[in-house]
Structure formats: structure tokens, C-alpha cells
């Protein structure tokens, strides 16, 4: 009988950098966090190594900013869960129906309840909602929001993007100059290299992830 550790070792070897972390919280239970792009690769790997693998179900959690997809498999007496997290802005779930036909209904149920678009599903019609159900009102979908209350969002955004929580406006910089002061005090944001250092420190912690900061767009992912 295959052990939990053997399953983990095998998936680590097959998925390499697509595997983010593993955990074994109790006997006969294995969680494998993977990159969302590696879902099909992981399913294929399980099928190849364990011919009796059985797809159990798919759970989905709306975390506000992200969807967490949990594909549960029964492998030789153990439950192996492939856990993948996607930004809600992406709003898609790659179908595994061609690999696992039994995933057909549960993927459609997830699409109905959370409003996720299925990619490459052979029958992407509604399963439990009526055909005229509005796209923007899904029973289990939360608004795209992080942990911060609205009043605290500008402060968090300013801290990460500018290193300063007060508004940095051209008007105030001009007024400072008129008052005989430098346009800005020696804040990190006044020097690109120093700013990279400051933001690097933030990236090395979980702050930007927790507040939902988009480093490319330089703003929070929600208003």
C-alpha cells in the first residue's frame, strides 16, 4: 500500500517547481499546493502513477480576493487534495473533464454558484441555476474585497506604493517649495533605488498579499 510520504515524494518529483508546498495534517490525508497552471499536469501525474485513483469532488472557497480550488482524490486509501489558488480577477477554472469525466457536474455546480467561467468544459451550461439566472448574482460569490475596511484602503495603498501614508500631491510639493522647503523631505519614494529596497522589504513579508496589493498596477486590487 502506497504511503502518504511516497505520494508526496512522487508529486514533488513530477511537478517540480509547479508544486508550492505539501502538508500531511493527519493519517491518510495529503494536501498538495500547486500552481493553478499545473492542475492538469498534476491530475495526469496521479492517473499515470496510480491507476485506481478516484476523483472524489471539488470544493471551492471564495476568500474575497482569491478563489481556492480543492480537487480531492482517493489514492489507495488516502485522500489527496490538489489545492490551487487563483486571483478572482482571472475568474476561470480549467476543466479536467476530459481527464476525469466524473468532474463534469461538480465543475458546473462551482461555475453556477461562484460565477467562475469553465475553460474547455464540454457542456458549460448551467446545472443547478435556471438558464435566465443573472451572471452578476451568484449565490456563493463574495464581492472582490480584501480584509481592509474601505476607510483604511487609501492608507494601505499609499504606504506600499509611496512609502508615505499622507497624500503626495504636486500641489503640496509646490507649496512646500514656495515656503522655502524642499519639494519633499527625504522619503524613500524620492530615490528609486531606496524605494526598491523599501518595497523589497514589504514583498518579503505577507503585508501586500494580505491587503491585496497589485504590484504591476501599483494599487490595491479592489476599491
Amino acid at each position: 500500500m502506497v504511503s502518504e510520504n511516497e505520494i508526496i515524494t512522487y508529486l514533488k518529483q513530477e511537478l517540480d517547481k509547479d508544486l508550492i508546498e505539501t502538508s500531511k495534517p493527519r493519517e491518510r490525508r495529503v494536501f498538495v499546493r500547486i500552481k493553478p497552471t499545473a492542475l492538469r499536469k498534476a491530475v495526469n501525474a496521479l492517473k499515470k502513477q496510480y491507476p485506481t485513483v478516484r476523483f472524489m469532488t471539488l470544493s471551492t472557497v471564495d476568500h474575497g480576493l482569491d478563489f481556492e480550488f480543492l480537487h480531492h482524490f482517493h489514492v489507495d486509501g488516502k485522500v489527496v487534495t490538489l489545492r490551487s489558488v487563483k486571483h478572482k480577477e482571472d475568474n476561470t477554472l480549467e476543466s479536467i473533464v476530459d481527464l476525469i469525466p466524473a468532474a463534469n457536474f461538480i465543475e458546473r455546480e462551482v461555475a453556477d454558484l461562484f460565477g467562475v467561467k469553465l475553460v474547455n468544459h464540454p457542456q458549460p451550461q448551467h446545472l443547478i441555476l435556471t438558464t435566465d439566472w443573472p451572471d452578476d448574482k451568484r449565490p456563493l460569490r463574495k464581492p472582490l474585497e480584501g480584509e481592509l475596511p474601505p476607510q483604511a484602503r487609501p492608507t494601505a495603498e499609499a504606504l506600499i506604493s509611496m512609502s508615505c501614508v499622507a497624500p503626495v500631491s504636486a500641489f503640496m510639493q509646490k507649496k512646500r517649495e514656495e515656503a522655502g522647503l524642499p519639494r519633499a523631505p527625504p522619503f524613500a519614494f524620492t530615490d528609486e533605488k531606496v524605494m526598491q529596497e523599501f518595497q523589497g522589504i514589504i514583498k518579503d513579508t505577507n503585508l501586500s498579499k494580505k491587503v491585496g496589493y497589485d504590484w504591476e498596477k501599483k494599487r490595491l486590487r479592489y476599491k
Partner: protein
Amino acid sequence: MVRYASFLGCQIPMRIPSIEIASQKVFEKIGLEAIDLLGYSCCPEPVISRLLDKTAWLAISARNLALAEELGLDLMTLCNGCYETLVETNEILKHESEEMRRVNEILKQYGKQYAGKIEVKHAVEVLYEDIDIQKIKEQVVKLQKIRVALHYGCHMYREPAGEDIMRKPNMMKELTRVTGVEIIDYGLERLCCGYPSMQADEEFSLKQRLLLKLRRIKEAGADAVVVSCPACTIQFEIGQVMLRHYGVQYSIPCINLMELLALSFGVPSKDLHLEFHKSPVLQLAQKMEAM
């Protein structure tokens, strides 16, 4: 000459630079050299970062502390909020070796390191403890004939467990008294101005905090409120404007201790650019000059 690394914070330079100007004038007169902290960031503000990610809060703060340590100077701040963050993180880093190790692991990737060798002080403490109060009195060329209410700000009461929480407020009171003003008691000195609760409930913050104070200050006959914290200043000034939406009219000047000292040292009000204020501080200063 007394030397400190100067931590200006965010609100003073970007919202009320007249406090920055006034402090420069005051420091110059009393022989306090405040060295700019090049590349500093927000302290960081004590609510969001601390609650969401303690490591980020400590690491950002430790970076600021490390900048002062590189200069070989203790750190002085003009802002009560920055004071609280920097003092508290400094204590944690000095006494919790695991936190210090974790934070330095992050900092060292950027060529920074904090050894815990510096102290953090509020400018009020520096003026009171490091500059002789007699020396400050000697600089006063014009005693102010106004009545003021003091708002110390909540963070001013922070002291290690068992210590006297009135230590810094009393220092602020002494320094204010040097200017010749009459300090009036209004009974609600300890009450928060409501700035932090603005994040959660505007009406509560304005009506259950700021308004109670304004009412008592007015009844006590104060010409102005003296503060040492830029966040409290913002709350007193913007809050009075916002209260008009609730049908309440107040227009009490909210002057920073550094500005009051500068005026008493004979610095002309026009040199302080008091027009940055959203309450009639400039008018108050002009009235004081005309007295």
C-alpha cells in the same frame, strides 16, 4: 550641541509643513541639530500594518531605526503616532531576540542591519530633557497673552508598565507655560480627539470624541488648542469643518507646540507659513503679534 536623527513622519511634511518649518527655527535657536534621515519611510502607521502583518510592521520600522543607527544618532520624532510605533518596535526588537533575528534576516538582503543601539524620543522629551528649560526660556522674546487648552494626544501617555503616564504630558505643559500663555483646565484632556475612530465611524469620531472636547474647550474660554501631534491637529482642524455638516459651528485654532514656541522666540508668523493650517492659526498668530 545636542544632535538627533530627525524623523518627520508623513503627515507633518505633506499636510502641515508649518510644523516642520517651526521646528527648524526652534531647534536652531536652542542649539539642537536635527539630522535628516535620508530614505526614511512611514514609521509605519500603527494600525493597518501592525494588525495585518506584525513582521512587516517590525521590518519597516526596523529599517527606519537602522537608518538612524547608521548615523550613530538617537531618533527624535515630532509625531505622537510615529513615536509610539518607533518606541514600541524598538522595545520589541531589543527584548525579543527571535523577532530581531527574523527582521534582520529580511534587512540584510538589502545591506541593512539593526543592532538595537539607539533610543527613540519625542521632540517634547528632547526639549525638556536634553535642552535646559532655562535655555528655552532665554529664547522667549515675547510672552503670549492668550489662554490655551492642551491636548496631549493619547500616545503621549504611553510609558513602560508602572511608570508615570503624566511624565511627557507634564513636560509638554512646562514647555507650553514657558511661552507665557495661560493654560486652562477643561477636564477632558485625557479624551482621545477621535482621529483613529474616523477610520471606522465618522459620526462617532466627530460627535462622541471631538465635539465633546471642543464644547468644553470653548466653555473654558480657551483662545486655542495646543497640540504636539499632527494627526490630532488634522482631526481638530478637518473635524471642525466636517462638524458643520452636523449643524455644529466651531472655529478654534489648533496650534502645534513648535509653532507656539517659534512665535514666542520672535519668529514672524509669515515665516512659519501658518496658512497650511485648516483652522485660524494664522489669524491667532497675527493677533498675538499685535498684542
